[in-house]
């Protein structure tokens, strides 16, 4: 059982053009910034929006614009979990879960719904109305509602992002458990890298309607191909043209690197590899730039310092170093990066 999809959706000034291939038992995360077209993609797969292209699930053609095939949403066997649960407000929790079973004319819908609730440890909320549930409970019920219909394809639209940080971990655990026991194809859409890393086996990064990168979570973060992913991974991403031992960056800046090769490249510098000084350092490091501190973010005992200059970079230092160097917005600093700390790969 697999999902093969080539989806093209044209909106006024925006075109989504994405191809996906997902195997059963695999969770694919479509990761991208807001406005990248992720929800549009999900809605097209669910049959809710018009699209061009072809969608084949488990050998069944759900959509084929050339052959004028369009299977309506209700016959796709595609379970959909919305960002903010969208539980039916006029039905109790158990009736929400039984809704899909009744629609499929299954006998004993109520008993089956109860079993799903009991298995998830939500049996005591069966008769509650959705508005009395906590955000985490509501999202878990929404997931059960979709799973109870035994779909072949499970589509999740930012399933955790509407939740408080405090309950996110709990719901994520539950989601991981439920996803691993679900045998169908799983497609998750999110703008949150943590959500993607935690839940997905494979990530497709989408920006402005097209795929910019595909790979396992490790591959994607190790070699980001877009500013968005680099920011997610917390690394500095620079783009330029390689000339053997250095990379020419925008604005006449140059970055020394080992074996940079040639042609258009990405260069990644981890913030920990960026050293900061108050005065121009001695010695012969080749990557030395002057800059001005733009902002400082405290993250536990570490500090991320955003520096503006010919080569804008984020540096990570300890709290002690921050105080010693007197780093605050507007301070003037020198940035130093060893050539060996720069990793370069073709764009």
């Amino acid at each position, binding site marked *: 059982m697999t999902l093969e999809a080539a989806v093209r959706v044209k909106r006024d000034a925006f075109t989504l053009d994405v191809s996906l291939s997902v195997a059963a038992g695999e969770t694919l995360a479509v990761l991208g910034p807001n406005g990248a077209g992720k929800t549009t993609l999900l809605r097209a797969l669910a049959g*809710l929006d018009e699209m061009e292209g072809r969608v084949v699930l488990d050998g069944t053609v759900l959509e084929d614009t050339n052959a004028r095939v369009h299977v*309506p*949403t209700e*016959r796709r066997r595609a379970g*959909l979990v919305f960002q903010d649960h969208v539980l*039916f407000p006029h039905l109790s929790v158990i009736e929400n879960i039984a*809704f899909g079973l009744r629609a499929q004319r299954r006998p004993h819908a109520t008993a089956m719904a109860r079993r799903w609730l009991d298995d998830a440890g939500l049996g005591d909320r069966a008769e509650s109305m959705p508005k009395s549930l906590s955000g985490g409970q509501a999202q878990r019920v929404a997931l059960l509602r979709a799973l109870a*219909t035994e779909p072949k394809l499970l589509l999740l639209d930012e399933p955790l992002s509407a939740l408080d940080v405090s309950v996110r971990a709990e719901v994520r655990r539950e989601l991981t458990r439920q996803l691993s026991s679900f045998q169908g194809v799983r497609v998750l859409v999110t703008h949150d890298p943590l959500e993607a890393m935690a839940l997905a086996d494979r990530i497709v990064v989408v920006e402005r309607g097209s795929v910019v990168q595909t790979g396992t979570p490790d591959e994607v973060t190790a070699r980001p191909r877009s500013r968005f992913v680099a920011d997610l991974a917390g690394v500095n991403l620079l783009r330029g043209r390689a000339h053997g031992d250095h990379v020419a960056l925008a604005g006449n800046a140059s970055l020394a690197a080992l074996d940079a090769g040639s042609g258009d490249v990405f260069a990644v510098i981890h913030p920990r590899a960026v050293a900061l000084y108050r005065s121009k350092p001695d010695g012969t490091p080749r990557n030395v730039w002057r800059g001005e501190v733009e902002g400082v973010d405290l993250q536990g005992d570490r500090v991320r310092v955003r520096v503006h200059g010919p080569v804008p970079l984020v540096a990570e230092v300890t709290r002690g170093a921050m105080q010693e160097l007197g780093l605050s917005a507007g301070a003037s600093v020198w940035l130093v990066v060893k050539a060996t700390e720069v990793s370069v790969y073709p764009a």
Partner: protein
Amino acid sequence: MLAGLGLLLFVLPLAGLIIQAPWNQALGELADPTTTTALGLSIFCSLTATAIALVLGIPLAMILARTRGTLRNVLRALTTLPMVLPPVVGGVALLLAFGRHGVAGSFLRQWFGIQIPFTTAAAVMAETFVAMPFLVIAVEAGLRSLDHRYEEAARSLGAGYWRVFTRVTLPLLRPAIVSGAVLCWARALGEFGATITFAGNFPGRTQTVPIAVYLALESNPDAAITLSLILLVVSVAILVGMRDRWLGAL
């Protein structure tokens, strides 16, 4: 000052009605067969008109809520016209359409032997014509503010069109339908102009309370006042019952 004058314009007639009411005879007037017949007929006609408006108006509201552009504007103007049209004109129009020589009337008479004007059915039709827009407008507004993702969620769970409509759309629209139906019923109950033009004034058949009030004003003012009071009480009851919904919307 002007505001006070404006308020006075509303309050004074109502106060007059209450002060002049023959309170000691009111019960006696209520027992009068003319009064009870008119009341019964009014309740029957207005409820039937509301029921018809529900059956026809909800689908109409759905079409209005789901179309766009010129077609929608034309449809909307047509359905809301009875709200601004003088009811008498509505009555004349109905008479011309369903009368003996009317477009639909002659057809109905020749093929089915049905004559609508000056029957109870005519009174119901006149009330529906005038009152249905209130329901359509309320339901359309409800549909527009409805989060359509509920319907999409239902479809993704395998529910077909009819199941989505009856199990999700209608229950979610309930507040809009209830308030629309109450408004529609109130308007139908008070209908005068179109009814007397299209259905006439036949006690027990087409003489509804407003018509009875108008006619009784000369022959039996006490009965007219009593019936007016009843309509006033109904209106106040509706206002009180719906105040949360209406004031809440402001």
